[in-house]
C-alpha cells in the first residue's frame, strides 16, 4: 500500500491544524492568517501540479488519476484565489477570522477527497465534509439577516438533497452488494438491469444535481449566493461545483457508461432546462450577485451539454470548461467583492458610470462577463466551443442549437451590466473603489489566465484529452 498517494490530503489536514495554532499565536493582526492560508494553498497547488503521482489505494477506494489531479488543481486554485480575495474584504470579527479560513480549508479537504474517491462511502463522506463547512461559511456573517437566511436555506435544502442521494446510493448497494464504483460498473455492464437500479440512478442524479444547481434543484442558488459572503459565494460557485461535476463524471460518464440510454436523454432535457431557465431568470435581476447566481445556473447547463456528448471528448471538454469557468467566475466575484467593500452596495444601478470612475475595474468586469458569455479571444469561448462540439459528435444537434441561442440570451443580460457601467451616468455619488492588494492580485492572475487559456488552449486541451482517454484504459 502506497500511503504517499494521500500526501496532498495529509498536507491539507496539517494546514488546518496549523491555522488553528496560528489563531492562538496571533492576537491582533488576524489578516495574517488569511495571507498564510492563501500562500499555503498556492504552495499546495504548485505541489500537486509538479508532484503528479498516480496510483490506487485500498482496493480501488481511493485513486490518484488524471481527473483527480486536474480537478485538485482547480480546487486548490479556487481556494487560493478565494483566500486572496477574502483577506481584506470579509467582515468577520477578529475572534472568528481563523474559523473562516479553517472552514475554507476543511471544505477544500472534503472536495479533494471527493474527486479522488471511487467508492460510495468515501465519496459521500467527502461530499458532506465539503458542504457542511460551506453551510457554516454561508452563515458566518451572523449579524446579517441575509447571510443567516442563506445558511438556513442552504442547510435544509442541502440536507434533503443529501438524503435523496444517500437513499439512491444505498439502493445501488442493495442491488449490487458493492460500494466500489468498478464493481458497480461491472454489474451495470452485465445487462441485468433492475427497476430499482434505474430508480437509484435517477435519485443519485437528483442528489448530485443539487450541488450542481441544475434545474429543478436550483431554487437555493440565488438566495444563498446573495446572502453568503462574496468570497464564499465565489468558492461555492466554482470549487464546490467543479467537484460536484467530477462526482457526476465518475458516476455517469464512468460507472453508468453502459446505461447511457437511460441517463443521456434525461440529462439532455435537464441541460436544456438549466440553460434556458437560468438565462431567462437572470434578465430581470437587479442585484449583481443574484444575476451572477442565475448566470452560474446557466453555465451548469452548458457543462451538462458536454456530459451528453461523446465519452472521451465530452469528459475532456467538461474538464477544460471547469477550469475556464473557475477563473472567469472568480474574477467576476472579485470585482463584486471589491465594489461592495468600498461602496457597501451590490445593486446593479450603483454600477452606473463605473467606467468613468474606475476604468480598469470596469474593463476587468467586462472581460469576465464576456468570457462567461463566450466571446472569442477569451477562455469561455474555447470552453463552450468544445462542449458543443462534444454534443455534436453524439448527434444532439437540437441541444447545440439551444445552447447557441442561450448564449445569445446570456449576452443580452451581460451587456445590460456593461451598458450600466459604460453608457449610463452616475445617479448618486458613491465612494471611490479602493482595491486592496489581495483583490488586485486575484484580478491580475485571473485576467492572465483568461487570456492565456483563450489564446493558447492547446496544451491544456491536450492534457484533458489525455486524462479522459486514460480513464477508460485498464
Amino acid at each position: 500500500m502506497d500511503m504517499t498517494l494521500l500526501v496532498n490530503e495529509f498536507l491539507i489536514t496539517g494546514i488546518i491544524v496549523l491555522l488553528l495554532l496560528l489563531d492562538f499565536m496571533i492576537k491582533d493582526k488576524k489578516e495574517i492568517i488569511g495571507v498564510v492560508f492563501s500562500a499555503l494553498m498556492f504552495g499546495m497547488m504548485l505541489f500537486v501540479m509538479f508532484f503528479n503521482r498516480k496510483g490506487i489505494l485500498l482496493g480501488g477506494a481511493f485513486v490518484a488519476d488524471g481527473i483527480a489531479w486536474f480537478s485538485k488543481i482547480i480546487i486548490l486554485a479556487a481556494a487560493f484565489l478565494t483566500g486572496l480575495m477574502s483577506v481584506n474584504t470579509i467582515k468577520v470579527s477578529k475572534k472568528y477570522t481563523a474559523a473562516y479560513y479553517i472552514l475554507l480549508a476543511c471544505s477544500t479537504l472534503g472536495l479533494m477527497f471527493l474527486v479522488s474517491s471511487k467508492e460510495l462511502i468515501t465519496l459521500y463522506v467527502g461530499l458532506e465534509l465539503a458542504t457542511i463547512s460551506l453551510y457554516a461559511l454561508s452563515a458566518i456573517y451572523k449579524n446579517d439577516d441575509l447571510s443567516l437566511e442563506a445558511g438556513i436555506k442552504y442547510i435544509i435544502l442541502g440536507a434533503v438533497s443529501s438524503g435523496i442521494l444517500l437513499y439512491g446510493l444505498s439502493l445501488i448497494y442493495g442491488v449490487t452488494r458493492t460500494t466500489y464504483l468498478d464493481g458497480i460498473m461491472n454489474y451495470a455492464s452485465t445487462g441485468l438491469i433492475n427497476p430499482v437500479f434505474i430508480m437509484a440512478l435517477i435519485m443519485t442524479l437528483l442528489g448530485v444535481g443539487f450541488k450542481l444547481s441544475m434545474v429543478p434543484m436550483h431554487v437555493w442558488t440565488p438566495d444563498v449566493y446573495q446572502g453568503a459572503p462574496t468570497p464564499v459565494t465565489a468558492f461555492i460557485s466554482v470549487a464546490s461545483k467543479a467537484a460536484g461535476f467530477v462526482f457526476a463524471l465518475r458516476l455517469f460518464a464512468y460507472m453508468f457508461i453502459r446505461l447511457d440510454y437511460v441517463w443521456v436523454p434525461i440529462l439532455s432535457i435537464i441541460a436544456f432546462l438549466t440553460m434556458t431557465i437560468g438565462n431567462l431568470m437572470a434578465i430581470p435581476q437587479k442585484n449583481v450577485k443574484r444575476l451572477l447566481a442565475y448566470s452560474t445556473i446557466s453555465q451548469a447547463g452548458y457543462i451538462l451539454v458536454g456530459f451528453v456528448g461523446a465519452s472521451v471528448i465530452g469528459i475532456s471538454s467538461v474538464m477544460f470548461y471547469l477550469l475556464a469557468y473557475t477563473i472567469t467566475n472568480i474574477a467576476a466575484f472579485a470585482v463584486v467583492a471589491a465594489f461592495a467593500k468600498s461602496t457597501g452596495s451590490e445593486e446593479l444601478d450603483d454600477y452606473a458610470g463605473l467606467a468613468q470612475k474606475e476604468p480598469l475595474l470596469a474593463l476587468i468586469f467586462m472581460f469576465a462577463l464576456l468570457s462567461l458569455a463566450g466571446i472569442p479571444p477569451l477562455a469561455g469561448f474555447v470552453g463552450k466551443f468544445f462542449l458543443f462540439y462534444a454534443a455534436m459528435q453524439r448527434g444532439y444537434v437540437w441541444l447545440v442549437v439551444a445552447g447557441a441561442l442561450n448564449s445569445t440570451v446570456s449576452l443580452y443580460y451581460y451587456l445590460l451590466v456593461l451598458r450600466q457601467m459604460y453608457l449610463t451616468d452616475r445617479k448618486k455619488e458613491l465612494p471611490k473603489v479602493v482595491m486592496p492588494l489581495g483583490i488586485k492580485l486575484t484580478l491580475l492572475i485571473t485576467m492572465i489566465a483568461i487570456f492565456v487559456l483563450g489564446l493558447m488552449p492547446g496544451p491544456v486541451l491536450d492534457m484533458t484529452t489525455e486524462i479522459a482517454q486514460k480513464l477508460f484504459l485498464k
Partner: protein
Amino acid sequence: MVELILFYAFAGVIIFSAMLMVLSRNIFHSALFLAVTLLGVAALFAMMGSFFIAGIQVLLYIGAVVVLTIFVINLTKQVIGQDAPQVNEHVIPAIITSLLAACLIILAVLKTDWGTRIAQSVAQTELTDNTALIGRQLLTNFVIPFEVVSVLLLAALIGAIAIVSRDKEAEK
C-alpha cells in the same frame, strides 16, 4: 414465520410513528415520536443480526440526537412557543407528489429481483461475528471515510461555535 410477523409489526410501528411525528402539532411530541421511529429501526437492525448497529442506533440516535433535540426545543420555547404552527400551505400538492413518489418506489421495489437467497447466506455468515467484522473493515478498507469523519466533526464544531456564539465586537 415469527420473524415475518415481527418484521411487519416493527415496520408498522416505524411508519405509524413517523407519520405522527410529521403530523403532530406539538413539536415536543414530534421529537418523542422521532425517538419511537428510531427505536423501531434499531429493532429491525437487531432482527437482522446487526446487534452492534442496533446498539449504536439506540445510543447515538435516541441517546444523543433526540435528547439534544428535546433540549433545543425546551431552551427555545420562549422564542418559538410550544405550539408553533406546522401547517404546510401546499398540503394537497405535497400529498399528491409524495403519493406518486411512494407508488413509484413501491412498484420498482416489487419488480426487482433482490436475490433473496444470496442475501440470506450472507446474513448468516455475518451473524457469527458481525461486530468484529465492522471494526476490521472500518480500520482497513474503509479507513479513509473513518478518518475523514473526524475532520468533519471538527469542521462542524468550529462552524457551530463561529455561528452561534455571541460576538461582542461585531455587535458594536
